[in-house]
């Protein structure tokens, strides 16, 4: 069985997004498990720009791989303060470094309490393992 990275400083959704809080903003991306399932990512269609607001559960991007196209949902609500435009030209960064250079958007959280409803690293690792079973 594969062994996917699930860093402890991140919170997770069941739909395989991660969110890492740093001060009053948080970065959002796709997990190691998600990029592994999608295989080679060839295009990121970002559907938000800086200044837009997203609500938890909103689709903010579509990621295309050689196998499928998947929507990516915001784990929490807030204003978009940065978008990783480097993914336009090098979408494969998500495959290589999903929790680092492969981040997708940065949001200013409107309600930090929303994070309490997300999975922690241990629960998410279990969620991944169950789906492989």
């Amino acid at each position: 069985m594969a062994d996917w990275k699930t860093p402890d400083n991140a919170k997770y959704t069941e739909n395989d997004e991660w969110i890492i809080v740093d001060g009053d903003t948080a970065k959002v991306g796709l997990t190691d498990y998600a990029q592994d399932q999608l295989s080679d990512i060839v295009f990121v269609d970002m559907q938000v720009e800086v200044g837009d607001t997203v609500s938890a559960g909103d689709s903010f991007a579509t990621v295309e791989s050689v196998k499928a196209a998947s929507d990516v949902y915001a784990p929490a609500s807030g204003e978009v303060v940065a978008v990783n435009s480097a993914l336009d030209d090098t979408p494969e960064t998500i495959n290589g470094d999903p929790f680092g250079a492969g981040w997708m958007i940065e949001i200013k959280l409107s309600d930090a309490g929303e994070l309490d409803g997300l999975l922690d690293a241990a629960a998410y690792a279990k969620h991944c393992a169950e789906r492989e079973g």
Partner: protein
Amino acid sequence: MTYIPHTDADRKAMLEAIGVDSLDDLFDAVPADLRFPELDLPPGLSEMETAWELNGLASANVAANDFALFLGAGAYNHFIPSVVNHILLRGEFYTAYTPYQPELSQGTLQAIFEYQSMMCALTGMDVANASHYDGATSLAEAVIVANAHFRGKRSKIILSPGVNPQYRAVVRTYHQGNDLKFVGDKGSATVPDLVDMLDDDTAMLVVSYPNFFGQIDDLTGLAKSVHDAGALLCMVVDPIALGLFKSPGELGADIVVGEGQPLGIPLSFGGPYLGFFATREKFVRKIAGRIVGETVDADGRRAYVMTLRPREQDIRREKATSNICTNQGLMALAACVYMSVMGKHGLRRAAELCYHKAHYAAQQIDALEGYSVDMSQPFFKEFVVACPEPVAAINDVLLEHWGIIGGYDLSKDYPARENQMLLAVTEMNTKDEIDTLVEALRSAPDDIANHAHHHHHHS
């Protein structure tokens, strides 16, 4: 063998799953008296009798090959080299569809790839898809691309009144369910008037090249104005005209669409035709339809594949760029063969013949008493004739007395253009035909008057 794969047991299981007792219950919403209307059909006919019946009906048509034809307005009578049909009828190619196991059909994919490549060369664009139903649906798809590009944040589409009226009607029908506003085409706006309508809510501006009246508008600087407003420029083009005039790519267009029928496809009473669609590379993931790409197989040999598939509805479901995946494969093949046979120089020669014959006809008609032709702007193969009588009356005389199919009655779509006829002249019209048309137009007012007098006399 049965063509219906479901067994009674299958049907029973499906009905149970949705909680319905019988198939009839599924039609409850349709009033009982409308479910099986009396069809009042005549008794069946043998194949021989059917052929007689249909030939009799067909002989009531006026066919392009039997008459001198000066009708255009979106569908044109151009020469079709006989090799086009010979290739189309080959069993390996004879389907309207792109195959569902595409990579197995390398020949079909290669033909589509070559069609796409030639459409790019013709339009000056980076990428073309495998086609749409017709020019009108291609334009409707261009609007979808613009809307997707701005993620619905710009709601205005400026349409030139010089875009084919049927295309504009189809675009409105296509988009009646969303929040887009279509403006600009209700009056007689010129290109500068359209530029004045640009604002930060404008997603796209659409012009026709040539316009519906056959004229080549001066589009210098248009792309810059459109792009300065942050909007996209779409051009609806006649592919034959591109053999002669500057390409939309050089003029700065973002999307180029049009009717491919002039490229080796017969008039056929309105279809099947071919919608072409070409654009800049940066929009490729937003476009509808299928795209064939060239690659290499595992052994390094050249091979063709369906590419950029995640745009399409079988993968993206309801978030697909469009619900149109079908193309006009056979018609695209016809265009591919036509362009291959004609080549760059042949296409230019055909365009030059259209241009010179149309200008000869325009000058002769303009010299007639009672008629005038607006030659103030450059034009290609069509021009507008102001007539001394209603167009329908003149066309009746042309057909009945001279065996000529006359031009398009512009008052049908443009009420202000009463007595204005749109005439099309192509390489298929001989000088004799044109001279006969001029004579016919010269005597038409008298013929109409005599006809009316004749009727009056007997009433």
